[in-house]
């Protein structure tokens, strides 16, 4: 029977498009071509319309002088820099607030999630109130609320105090002393890197030793001491290779030191609190997904409750927690674009806002902005997927 149909296929005189496989390939090629033609037509039409109306197009504007100042920048920036540098400053500002917010919201979210499962009635109810309140109100309102609430309660610059001659918290921001680094300061971060390497080595050696001999090793404490003490030791040997520059009140504002503008603090605060509410629920779901029999068995084996959580519950719960956590991180990064409402100069505010308006090239700036967010989001997803695969339990 097989030979008959095989022979039939090979010697058949029916046209080639009767073959299902070839038909499938042909149709896919055709649809792909139609899509490509559509995209090419849209691009061509747009370019022609722009030319007809005399609107500038192209990416040459990235090399023009920007002409405006930015209030918060991690790298040096002057008004005579190019729009390209504005783009980089915007990206760094977005990454800065997103990175810190991701770490902060994860920590807070885990704590609140576990607290909500506590047997203490008051703590569990307080955690519930927090989660429900922050999840169900729009983020933009929360950002604006924190900004004006923070601004309204902080003291005026002139009336603020300089704590210990070093710190000041007022309406213009949080002023901290800035370190001015000597030339040989680079040895300190180098020693930190070495300390981290040693810590990894110690952890592996301790784990291997425990597997072989059963003897536990205070890995966490030893590694913490290593990471903290080694750089301190290095800097002491080098003679403390930095000076502090203290903020002083001069004229309108404080001079010297570093300032964290209230826009940054308000945005960070509201992003952390908002996302932590969502993460708390994800963590709670993950913990509840582990069957109670596991806890009972672990307790029956004589493990302390803290060890039960750390060694038995969390590894299984993490399988359920990590995938939705990725979504929350991506959501947080994109939510940081609401910064324009409170004057924090993130990517959307300086590039898709001011630059778009000054150059009038809406299509190019929005495309670049979307590509940047896409890249950041894909990078976060890739990292989280790798981590997910790494901690996945291999079932027999």
């Amino acid at each position: 029977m097989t030979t008959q149909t095989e022979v039939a296929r090979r010697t058949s005189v029916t046209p080639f498009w009767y073959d299902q496989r070839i038909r499938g390939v042909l149709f896919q090629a055709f649809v792909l071509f139609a899509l490509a033609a559509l995209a090419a037509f849209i691009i061509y039409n747009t370019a022609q319309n722009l030319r007809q109306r005399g609107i500038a197009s192209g990416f040459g504007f990235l090399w023009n002088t920007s002409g405006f100042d930015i209030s918060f920048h991690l790298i040096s920036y002057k008004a005579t820099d190019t729009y390209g540098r504005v783009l980089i400053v915007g990206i760094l500002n977005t990454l800065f607030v997103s990175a810190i917010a991701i770490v902060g919201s994860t920590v807070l979210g885990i704590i609140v999630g576990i607290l909500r499962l506590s047997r203490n009635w008051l703590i569990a109810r307080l955690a519930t109130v927090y989660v429900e309140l922050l999840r169900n109100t729009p983020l933009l309102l929360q950002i604006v609320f924190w900004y004006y609430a923070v601004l309204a309660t902080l003291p005026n610059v002139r009336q603020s105090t300089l704590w210990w001659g070093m710190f000041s918290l007022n309406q213009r921001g949080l002023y901290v002393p800035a370190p001015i680094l000597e030339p040989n300061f680079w040895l300190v971060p180098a020693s930190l890197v070495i300390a981290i390497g040693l810590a990894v080595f110690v952890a592996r050696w301790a784990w291997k030793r425990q597997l072989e001999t059963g003897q536990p090793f205070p890995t966490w404490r030893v590694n913490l001491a290593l990471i903290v003490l080694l750089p301190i030791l290095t800097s002491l040997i080098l003679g403390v290779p930095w000076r502090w520059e203290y903020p002083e009140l001069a004229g309108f504002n404080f001079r010297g030191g570093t300032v964290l503008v209230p826009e940054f603090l308000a945005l960070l605060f509201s992003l952390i609190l908002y996302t932590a509410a969502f993460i708390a629920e994800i963590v709670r779901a993950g913990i509840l997904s582990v069957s109670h029999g596991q806890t009972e068995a672990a307790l029956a084996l004589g493990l302390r409750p803290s060890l039960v959580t750390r060694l038995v519950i969390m590894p299984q719960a993490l399988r359920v927690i990590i995938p939705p956590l990725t979504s929350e991180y991506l959501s947080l990064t994109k939510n940081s674009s609401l910064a324009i409402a409170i004057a924090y100069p993130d990517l959307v505010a300086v590039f898709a806002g001011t630059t778009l308006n000054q150059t009038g090239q809406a299509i190019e700036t929005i495309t670049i902005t979307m590509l940047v967010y896409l890249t950041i989001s894909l990078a976060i997803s890739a990292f989280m997927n790798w981590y997910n695969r790494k901690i996945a339990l291999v079932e027999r």
Partner: protein
Amino acid sequence: MMNWKIAAAGAALAMVVAAPAVAGPTLDAVKQRGTLNCGVNDGLAGFGAPNDKGEWAGLDIDLCRAVAAALFDDAKKVKYIPLTAKERFTALQSGEVDMLARNTTWTLSRDTGLGFDFAGVNYYDGQGFMVRKSLGVKSAKELNGASVCVQTGTTTELNLTDFFRTNSMELKPVVFEKAEEARTAYDEGRCDAYTTDASGLAAERSVLKQPDDHIILPEIISKEPLGPLVRHGDNEWGDVVRWSLNAMVIAEEFGITSENVDKIKAESTNPEIRRMLGVEGDMGQQLKVNPDWAYQIIKQVGNYGESFERNVGEKTPLHLARGLNQLWSKGGLLYAPPIR
């Protein structure tokens, strides 16, 4: 299944072949639609803001109404589209609005790179600063190291940076998307100074918590000719907008107001007045509007002086003097070409 795939491929082809319609002249499109889509400020007292009855009122609003009166004999046939400083140019470029009357400064890059034409100037302005009296600052040159609240995407932002750079002063800008956010932050004390056009300063000061605690510094650091704009590519439409504004100015030159325009139309023997009000000549026809276009503007909206006094003049909370916005014959800059 197969038919579905064919249909999908056919639809994609059809979309490619049936190209979107070529954009016709704006004037025809507006006349056909029967209403004017006018881009205005989302809330600047005196220039474009909803009043307490919810109707739009302001100097720029009156310009929209004048164009509608010229086109449709009805100043109410306007759809007002409030736009922030960030959205205004994209809205005009894309065709969402037919014209922009949103206190926009006439600059070279907006005239060329953005693809617009300015149809005149309806307010000659300049940029200034507002500070708290308690700071004891008497001049803008004393603002070294000050933080200044400003709105994004405006010439204000660029002029501010230029001014501080020219005078070698340090600037800490705090940049917001909306003017009211910038004003609120200044009111709360986040910034030492607030900057925008001098007319805007008067408007914003009137809505602060304690208006008398603030002063407007004397320096005017830039030229800000504010006027209506239209897109490149339709000269006839630009003419209609331009001459609607000119008609309001010329009416004030001749002393024609909304109250006496009927009397003057019936009795006047001045040839230019007769040409303007449509009694003689074919001015309306050349503009491709009705012959009584200017009469409708003056009757329904008023002349420039009436519009000024009603919206931003001495009797309003803004208290603005005519200053540069006076007729050329009285020492100001308003000089409209003759209607001939």
